[in-house]
């Protein structure tokens, strides 16, 4: 982002002649704008530092717990979202046209097979993947190709492999089943949606409008970088916050024992762990450690189902995906992933 603050003043200078004719006034206007920005940020810092002294203990315990949980998810996922927005700016504004496309295989299934391994090189976990995938779509990547990447990347990803290995080792084939399962379900979803006759119908109208505007955006790269920064954060942040609030609220309101009463039944345990995965909305980098604490009471198949479903469709992720894909696509994806994970869990339970 240092680049953008460096390139911002030239933006003002270049557009200035057409507006006022005096080159310097554009630059100074930019400086004033940046000054206002610094003042606003400083003021918010002061508010954050001093306002709490007037509001000691204003919330009832449950609401406070829900807010605490939601905020912890937000603080944890915010850096990944910002990283994802930066990556999306890079693919949309800074990588020349054709530079990525040239390296992609031509056959659709091979292209999806390669894209589902992209997560190995871009290890942002699931919340960062959404803005990055939007950048890919704006570049002109196919909808089904992008879906394949979105589903596979949070599972087939070096950090996730390391953390899952640290938690489970190779016991019960959990690590292997998770990786292969994630890879297969991603390609399955990609293949299903590649058969759709009109892929643009899979995207929300709002996202298509954003695409039109972003693609036709001219002007120098600094300006486009800033515009993309503003537009992407606007699309992702409200969804992220609402998703986190939902996750926090559900955790406070639904007693965990209600889910876990069904421990070791082979079929019911898989269903219970999938519901738990959707509800708790954990980041895929750490969900293995969370699942580990259930390993002693739950079947290995249900743990695998938890580890496959969680990164793809949890509450927070659905709110984020809804910014880009229609409700129908989300419902379809959920059905496919749940059925697939259930089958995978059953196979693991039978084999182990």
């Amino acid at each position: 982002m240092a680049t953008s603050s460096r390139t911002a003043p030239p933006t003002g200078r270049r557009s200035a002649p057409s507006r006022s004719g005096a080159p310097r006034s554009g630059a100074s206007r930019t400086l004033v704008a940046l000054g206002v920005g610094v003042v606003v940020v400083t003021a918010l810092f002061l508010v954050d530092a001093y306002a709490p002294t007037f509001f000691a203990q204003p919330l009832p315990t449950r609401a406070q717990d829900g807010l605490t949980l939601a905020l912890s998810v937000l603080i944890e996922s915010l850096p990944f979202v910002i990283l994802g927005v930066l990556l999306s700016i890079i693919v949309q504004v800074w990588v020349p046209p054709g530079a990525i496309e040239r390296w992609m295989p031509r056959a659709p299934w091979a292209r999806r097979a390669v894209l589902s391994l992209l997560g190995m090189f871009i290890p942002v976990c699931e919340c960062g993947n959404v803005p990055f995938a939007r950048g890919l779509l704006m570049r002109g990547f196919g909808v089904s190709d992008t879906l394949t990447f979105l589903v596979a990347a949070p599972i087939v990803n070096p950090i996730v492999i390391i953390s899952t290995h640290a938690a489970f080792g190779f016991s019960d084939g959990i690590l292997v089943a998770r990786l292969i399962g994630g890879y297969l379900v991603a390609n399955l979803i990609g293949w299903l949606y590649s058969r759709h006759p009109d892929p643009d119908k899979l995207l929300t109208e709002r996202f298509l409008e954003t695409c039109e505007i972003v693609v036709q955006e001219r002007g120098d790269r600094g300006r486009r970088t800033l515009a993309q920064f503003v537009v992407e954060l606007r699309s992702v942040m409200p969804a992220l916050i609402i998703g986190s609030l939902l996750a926090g609220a559900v955790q406070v309101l639904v007693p965990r024992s209600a889910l876990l009463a069904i421990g070791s039944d082979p079929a019911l345990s898989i269903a219970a762990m999938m519901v738990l995965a959707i509800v708790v909305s954990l980041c895929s980098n750490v969900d293995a450690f969370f699942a580990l604490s259930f390993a002693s009471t739950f079947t290995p198949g249900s743990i695998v189902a938890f580890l496959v479903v969680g990164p793809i469709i949890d509450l927070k992720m659905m709110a984020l995906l809804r910014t880009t894909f229609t409700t129908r696509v989300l419902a379809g994806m959920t059905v496919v992933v749940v059925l697939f994970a259930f089958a995978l869990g059953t196979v693991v339970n039978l084999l182990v």
Partner: protein
Amino acid sequence: MSRTGSLATRWLGVGLTTCLSITTITLWITGRMSLYINPDSAWFAVGMSIVALIGAVASFALPLGAEADHGHDHEHGHATAAAGARREAFAHADHAHRDPLDEHDHAAHDHLAARPRLTPGGIAAFTGGVLASGAVIAVLLTPAASLSTGLAVSRDVGAPPLFAGSDVVTLAASGDTSKFGIGDWSAVFAHATNPETFDGKPVTLTGFITPGGDGATFDLTRLVITHCVIDAQTARLPIAASVDAPSTGQWVTVTGTVRSSGDGKLEVRADQVASIDEPADPYEY
């Protein structure tokens, strides 16, 4: 796009990000990051928050509404094809880049500008925006808080936590248990194959009181966190004490020894139970 619309775009995107980044950085400066996330990953959260703040300040240099602007300067002459057309081209694996058409589609822009507010979608988007803003402002105005002890109890599922795999148990058997917290000990208590090894180990542990099960005076409980508060798991140790148990939820420091109770179970025999205020770091990582 109207001025109000542009302002809303800025607030819901850059504005909310800025508030959360400021919260993150303030928590880090005041040393309260461990109330929400594992301090080991604080560098990433704080680093990216600083990046976000730099971007937010820079975004003030972008004129209001410019993000939805086509940039009506045609002097560059190199029009880009609409995303749909490019997607189409890419889907057909036609890598020779055909010269894009200048489909300057103003319809999309006009549609966005004239977006009607009173549709179900518009109302939902508005409500969502208000909710998200309300939550972020609440976060900014209220002090940082830890989870209530009541939630810790309701989260207890009876399954002993096994945080770092069996490493803890192996490590414990090799001798050094001085750095062990309640989470480590509860894993040892649940999974140790030879409990006698631990008989007589001295412990000093801090946690809060929950009602004890079979035979224990009370359980010493603490939330153990791997990454952030939402993955908090309840760890508890049975404590046998000669004094009466303080009330549930009271924070205490217990000094005592680990004893094997003969039937293969372990418990902590407390020499001293001292009531304390909630510590600044209420969770174990």
